[in-house]
């Protein structure tokens, strides 16, 4: 992240909710030099040299952490770069993200990691952790120099975008993990089963004549990799769970004592394959694909019971010309950083499906699987705050995007709940333009 001044703010009269820290009350949040100094009774904080933020009726959450973002740098800066991607993250209330390594070329050496970390110090609005590939060039054959890459500062490893086809190669990586540490994040898909599929296999793919990706292409690989992790006592993080069978596979592995964590994406929690009937790839084509209502319900249940510890956007920007083509030809992926909270609040919290506190926990839950500090509002900690107006209604895309790309799965939707301001890594990373700040007289 760019270095800058630590935030000096009083969030006056905010409803502070941080379930992990046991905080749920109205407070003046005093932030000094980029740290949460104290939570005072409403009206009790003295603002003197602090900027006064009128936060009555607003919610202050620990800012969110996204362990799965594609920043497209290096090589695909026409889709996104460090500056635009982290701006999008800040606008979504995130105080930290992990960037995937499937760039062009992939992030496979210590020099790649060092260069990216330096670039992030120049351009990033929020802290960025970088993953490197498990295999050289993501070819699935030889391991990268994982120990040197870790020393260069990589948070972990992933060939995301592609599965690790070979059980032997993954086993070697898990063995090497004992030496170098770092979680291994896995895109689980058996390419023999997913083939040329472009959407979930089921009645909708049957009706549309689109090749299907069966749920078992994901769950069988999770079962295989959980068995390998258990055998080698390695640690794996399963990315973007989409199917009920996958939730079951992770649940079983956890019960068996495997060190496994996993994530689900907002679009899989909010949408089903019924959306694909529109044949709109800009909003509804991604891998893994949108699945059935039963799958969606299983993901929600997994979030509730803790099988799924975090929500990850899998923010995957693509240029318009890669999406304004027939469904089968379009690039896989949708953007999600700017809308994750608002969409989940609208679709799951407001209808009473998911508790607001649980949502906040899961949105910040992506740090722990990578041994990173969980964002919190507890006094004394670094300030990482998402200030939100839960009643604000807005139409996604109406005012453009912070991201360079426009392939938001929420494009055109009216959402309820909006991030007004984000403090990330102790600095003010984002303010909604129309959110005026009152300064004390």
């Amino acid at each position, binding site marked *: 992240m760019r270095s800058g001044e630590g935030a000096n703010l009083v969030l006056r009269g905010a409803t502070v909710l941080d379930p992990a820290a046991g905080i749920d009350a109205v407070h003046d949040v005093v932030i000094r030099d980029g740290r949460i100094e104290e939570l005072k009774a409403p009206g009790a904080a003295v603002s003197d040299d602090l900027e006064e933020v009128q936060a009555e009726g607003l919610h202050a959450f620990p800012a969110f952490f996204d362990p799965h973002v594609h920043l497209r740098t290096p090589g695909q800066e026409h889709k996104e770069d460090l500056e635009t991607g982290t701006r999008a993250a800040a606008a979504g209330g995130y105080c930290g993200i992990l960037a995937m390594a499937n760039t062009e070329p992939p992030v496979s050496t210590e020099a790649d990691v060092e260069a990216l970390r330096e670039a992030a110090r120049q351009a990033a609005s929020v802290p960025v952790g970088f993953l490197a590939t498990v295999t050289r060039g993501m070819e699935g054959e030889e391991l990268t120099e994982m120990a040197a890459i870790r020393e260069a500062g990589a948070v972990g490893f992933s060939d995301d975008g592609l599965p690790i086809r070979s059980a032997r190669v993954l086993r070697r990586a898990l063995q090497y993990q004992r030496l170098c540490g770092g979680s291994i994040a896995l895109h689980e898909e058996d390419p023999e089963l997913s083939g040329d599929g472009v959407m979930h296999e089921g009645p909708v793919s049957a009706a549309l004549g*689109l090749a299907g990706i069966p749920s078992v292409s994901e769950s069988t690989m999770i079962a295989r990799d959980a068995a390998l992790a258990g055998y080698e006592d390695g640690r794996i993080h399963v990315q973007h769970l989409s199917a009920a069978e996958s939730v079951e596979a992770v649940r079983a592995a956890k019960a068996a004592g495997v060190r496994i964590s996993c994530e689900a994406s907002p679009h899989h929690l909010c949408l089903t394959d019924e959306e694909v009937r529109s044949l709109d790839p800009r909003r509804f084509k991604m891998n893994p694909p949108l699945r059935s209502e039963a799958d969606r319900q299983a993901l929600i249940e997994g979030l509730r019971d803790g099988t799924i510890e975090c929500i990850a956007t899998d923010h995957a920007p693509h240029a318009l010309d890669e999406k304004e083509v027939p469904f089968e030809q379009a690039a896989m992926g949708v953007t999600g950083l700017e809308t994750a909270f608002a969409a989940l609040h609208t679709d799951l919290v407001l209808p009473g499906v998911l508790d607001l506190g649980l949502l906040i926990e899961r949105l910040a839950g992506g740090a722990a699987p990578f041994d990173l500090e969980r964002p919190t509002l507890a006094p004394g900690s670094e300030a990482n705050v998402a200030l939100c107006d839960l009643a604000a209604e807005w139409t996604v895309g109406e005012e453009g995007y912070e991201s360079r790309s426009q392939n938001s799965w929420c494009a055109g939707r009216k959402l309820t709940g909006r991030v007004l301001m984000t403090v990330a890594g102790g600095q003010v990373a984002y303010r909604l333009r129309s959110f005026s700040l009152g300064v004390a007289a």
Partner: protein
Amino acid sequence: MKHLLGIDQLSREEIEAILDRAESFAEVGRRDIKKVPTLRGRTVVSVFYESSTRTSSSFELAAKRLSADLVSLKAAGSSVDKGESLKDTVATLTAYDPAAIVLRHPYAGAAQLVAEWAEASVINAGDGKHEHPSQALLDLFTLRRRLGSLQGKRIWIVGDVLHSRVARSNLAAFQAMGAAVTVCGPPALIPRGIEQLGCEVAHSLDRLGEADVVYALRLQRERMAESFVPSIREYAAHFQIDSRRLGPRQLLMHPGPVNRGVELSGEAIDSPQSLIAEQVAAGLVVRMAILYELLAAGGERPAPAMGDAEQRPTPLGQPA
């Protein structure tokens, strides 16, 4: 009706209007001069990104019989070959101010996209494995002439349903007209979940005798390499429609081109129950009817009178 994108989007009344119109064009076809002036001065663009014999030729002849000017573009040898995107190709063709664009494309939803981009009426002449509505309409026309009504009739669609846009359009079309449909084929070639479209699924021809109409689909030879079925011999043994399996009161249809000796035996093709030649003949009049219904009926966009273009307001920033 502005576009013909899929059977899914048509009501029974709209389908019947097209079939009735096709009957009147069948009468025109019996005259010495088979041309009518309906679309004089209007342009029909036909764009085929896949090879096609009967669909492209019958649409083109249909446009000519209606006196339209025809621009016919095949993907091979055009700028499409040079990597031009569908959107850019459509923008180029729009310069001819076409009244209709007839599109065949290897991917689902292509016609729908073009309908969003272009002002012209768009006719889906086959999009990937999704829909082929003009085929379904000509099949309905053929059957209606033979059976009167499809209400309560049983129709079996036999073969490679998974890869067939004809199967999907015809399933919807037969059901819309009141028929009960069974799809039949080897399990790997029947899409998972298709029964939720309201059809029955069978994996053998044992009950074929209940069908009033047997609609056989083409089996592409490359399906063997992909392990969908082990061999032609095995497929034919279980699913070929031959004179032994086809009863004397059952009608036989096929969208063409036929793999003789694979999905159909030679004597079944040439049997009196076979409607295959009638299907081809119906193709022309039904496609004339489609063009007519979209471009001339209802007066949604009447043919421009001479000099009409000059009467539009002058755009700002351009000299009057």
